[in-house]
Each structure stands twice: as C-alpha cells, then as structure tokens.
C-alpha cells in the first residue's frame, strides 16, 4: 500500500506551528519526506512550499530522499576519531560507493556520520539499525556489510 501522508497531515490542526511536528511525523512513518507531501502540506497550512522546503532541508532529522533499508551510523566523535574512525568511514563509503547522507544504489544502506554514539569504550563504533559494532577495523567493516547484504542479520 502506498504511503498516505494525507492522513497524517489531517491529524493535525491547520496551524503553522505544527509544520515541524507534521514533517517529523511523516519522516518517522515514511523514512523521508516526499515532494507531494510537502506540496499537500503547503495547501493544508496555507504556507508557501518554499517555507516548508526550507524547514525540511534545515533539520538533519528530516530527509528528502528515501533512506536505505539499513541505516549505518559511523561515529566520528573524539574517541572514535582518535582510534581511527576516519579510515573506517572511508572504507565504508567506498564499499557502498556513496557520500555521507546518501543511500546506496541497491537501496539497502544509508550512511550517516555522527558525533559520539555514547559507546566510546568500544571505539571505533559503527551502529547499523540498532545494533552496535565495536572495535571496528577495515576488514570487519566489509564482513559486516556482507552479512547484511546476504541478509544474515535479523533484528
């Protein structure tokens, strides 16, 4: 079934101050904010599309493009940085052929670079969906990604 953003939008009063809340809600339930949803919301709230687009591109939590099936967070916080998260990040991005914030061609992975995942003792850390992978190395990155590709991880 296709995503019904109308329903989400109509769940909110027609007031400008709900713009962000509605966008967050759409993001949460759909993984990204479709262009049509923005246009519909613009009609609903009587707000220019440009204003909504401005908000949608400002907040990191909101995304304009579909996210991958798996969200990979690479930490580049202080502890992870010192323990070599840079090379891990590069390896990962090269493996998937994307830049931070993008989604791999097969739609399987999105990569986000974040600052500290609160697991510094495990540095360098990569989190996939809700699973933590600590003490990462270049080789480990590859084998973990392969596991997901072959759908050997279930969470």
């Amino acid at each position, binding site marked *: 079934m296709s995503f019904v953003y109308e329903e989400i939008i109509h769940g909110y009063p027609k007031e400008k101050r709900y713009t962000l809340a509605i966008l967050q809600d759409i993001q949460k339930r759909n993984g990204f904010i479709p*262009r049509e949803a*923005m246009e519909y919301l613009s009609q609903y709230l009587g707000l*220019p*599309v*440009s*204003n909504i*687009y*401005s908000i949608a*591109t*400002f907040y990191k939590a909101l995304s304009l493009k579909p996210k991958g099936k798996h969200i990979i967070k690479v930490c580049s916080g202080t502890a992870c940085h010192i323990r070599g998260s840079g090379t891990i990040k590069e390896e990962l991005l090269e493996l998937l052929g994307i830049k931070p914030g993008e989604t791999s061609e097969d739609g399987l992975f999105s990569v986000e670079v974040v600052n500290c995942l609160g697991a510094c003792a495990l540095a360098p850390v990569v989190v996939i969906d809700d699973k933590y992978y600590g003490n990462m190395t270049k080789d480990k990155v590859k084998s973990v990604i392969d596991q997901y590709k072959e759908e050997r991880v279930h969470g």
Partner: protein
Amino acid sequence: MKLKIDGIICEGREGETLMEVAKRHGIHIPSLCYRKGFEGLARCRLCLVEVKEGSRRRIVSSCVYPIKENIEVTVTTDEIQRMRKNIIMLLLLKAPNNSYINKLAEEYKVAAPERYMNPLDDENCILCGLCVKACEKMGTNAISFVNRGIYKKVSTPYDDASKDCIGCGACAEVCPTNAILVEDNEGKRKIWNREFNMVKCSLCGSYFATEEAYKLMQEKLNDNEEPICNECRKKIAADKLKESFANIY
C-alpha cells in the same frame, strides 16, 4: 524623543530604529542588509554602533535597535571599526570575487588570510536574506533559505524552475551584491531556472515586465489599462504636471 548621534541632536518617534533616525538626519551608518520596506533582517551586522545610556555602554545593531530617550550614539569607535573589519573579512571569504564586497574591503583596508581564500570561488551571495524578504513582500514566496551551515543558500524548492515565481525580479533588485542572475533577452527573461515571456510597453515598445508579474500587478491594482512601462508612466505624470502648471500661469 531626543537622542544624540555623533554629537548631533536628533529627533525620533517611539518605535523607530536607530538606523531610520540616523538616515533621516543624513548620518551615514554602514550597512548591507538594511533596506527601507524590508527592515528587520539584521544579518550583516555592519551597522554596529555604540550606544551610551547613562553610564552604560553597549554595542548594538542599529538597524533593529529601537531608539530610547537621551541615548548617545557613536557610529564608529576603534572597537567598532575593528569589528566591522572582521565582518568584512568574513564576507570577503564568503564572496571573494564579488566586486561590491571587494570595494568594501578596499575601503576598509581589509585583506582576507590567503590560506583561507579560494580565488576560484564564484559565490556572490552573502546570505543577507533581503531577496527572500523581497519575494515574500513583493512577489510570491518562491525562494527561501535552503540547507544549513556551510551548505546554506537561497533557492527555489529542489532548485527547480519554481511554479510560484512570477519573474518580477524583486529579489535581484534588492540584492546588495548582485548575486541573482536575471537574463533579459528579446522578450524573454530567465531567472531562477525558469523562462518567462515579457510584456511590451504600449507606448515605447520596450519589454518591461514578465507576463506573470504584469498580471499580478494588474490584479493588485485592479486596472485593465494597456501595459505602460515605468519610464513612460513617469513621463506621463511629468507632462500632466507641466500642463497643470501651464494652466496656472
């Protein structure tokens, strides 16, 4: 109420900003993002001045500072001059090849540290927001700030040819650094990735507005006359004036 700017006694109304009062009294305060009719942005901070209230001194942005009775304002102190130089240096890094910013830098004897300079950078926008405000007030809210941090820019949604844009050019008109590209060519105008057909003045025959902008203006003014450009309008007004004078004398 009365206040002093650079020793000159000025008169202002409650709610007026320092910038407005200074302007009316012919006192110059440097600014980039202040423009009558589009006040309140306070983004460039070139308009910093020192305000002395009793024994308290502070530095404020004059374009948004509401005047108070008996304050004493100094437009430029050593400290403020230093701050303005810093701001201009940052602007220069943002738009290193912009002629207006370069002129400003020259005037203030500012050079940006070379290691941060990208001589190939062709950015002209300093993100003052005047164009967004102009589009909101005179146009159709077609443009807005997009993204954040170092990726922040002014654009239409998805950088597309905007459905809302009417090609009025108000944004380009107010831009202090001439950052918005408008190409007028043989009855067509290109702006914000969209092409518009233009309307000819029924008197002089020059293209003067896009069809969409002209239509909106007509709707707003409720008029159905033949299209007449600004120049010709002015001429007509002047001629009428002359006529009425001729009738008096």
